[in-house]
């Protein structure tokens, strides 16, 4: 995976496949402490402890189309290269929380990539799911909550070209404002 925005897109696919109705993405860039954390929480069907253990193992997946689940192991490897770690907390029937933290300025840290594109495509393609994206830096916080946007838009779907275009610009401007997701 070339950048963090692609890892994020891939990890959220797991939440979507788990039938989540709400997915929360939290990114925290802490320059002072040289630490970057990326957390994803969903209210999907969750996993039991045995599954969580196996999920960290690259030769496990519950999918039937291919035998090897790669997404999480790939992410864990990238995080560990940056002296970080990944934890998964999950309750069957309740949801899953994937937490990760690693060195922000590590030479091997993948670039952020296009976080605006990732979040926009997630919203565009999943009309039945709400997303809360919160990005924190030393200079501020940016938050996008599709539930708020839905409330304002009423019967107009978020996938409408004008709305989705607005969302993309809103994220891009919001991140710029706080110097977030730059490199």
């Amino acid at each position, binding site marked *: 995976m070339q950048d963090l925005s*692609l890892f994020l897109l891939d990890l959220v696919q797991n939440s979507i496949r788990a039938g989540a109705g709400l997915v929360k993405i939290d990114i925290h860039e802490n320059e002072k402490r040289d630490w970057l954390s990326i957390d994803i929480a969903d209210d999907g069907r969750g996993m039991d402890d045995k599954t969580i253990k196996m999920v960290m193992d690259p030769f496990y997946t519950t999918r039937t189309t291919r035998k090897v689940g790669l997404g999480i192991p790939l992410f864990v490897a990238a995080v560990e290269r940056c002296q970080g770690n990944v934890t998964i907390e999950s309750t069957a029937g309740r949801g899953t929380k994937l937490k990760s933290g690693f060195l922000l300025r590590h030479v091997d840290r993948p670039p952020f990539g296009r976080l605006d594109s990732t979040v926009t495509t997630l919203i565009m393609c999943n009309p039945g799911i709400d997303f809360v994206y919160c990005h924190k830096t030393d200079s501020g916080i940016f938050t996008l909550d599709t539930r708020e946007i839905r409330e304002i838009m009423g019967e*107009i779907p978020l996938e409408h070209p004008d*709305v989705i275009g607005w969302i993309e610009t809103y994220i891009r401007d*919001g991140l710029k404002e706080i110097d977030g997701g730059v490199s």
Partner: protein
Amino acid sequence: MKTLKELEEIRQRTLEAINLRKDRNGIRVVVGMATCGIAAGARNVLTGLIDQIRDRRIQHITVAQTGCIGVCRYEPMVEVYYPGEEKVTYVNMTPEKVERVVTEHLVNGSPVTEYTIGAAEKIH
């Protein structure tokens, strides 16, 4: 800085400009978004598709994503469903190829045969 207030304006404008038809028999385009697809560039293919549809104001198209469509070496893959017709599967897509598919297939109705899985399988 953009504010949520602007959304209210978009809402007004949109309500006036279009009638929100519940189009159930429109064209459906699906992009494969499994790990292999994403690693192979599926996100940019999807973004390209969304931009094209927006810029050209094409209506009656639903864009969706799905997990693994099947064959990693053919990713990024895009499927096009016309109501009542057999689906067309495009393989090894790029944002450039998407542009042609939008013009020739989604707007003009004729599939770009050379990008389809059928054409790819002949070569392999």
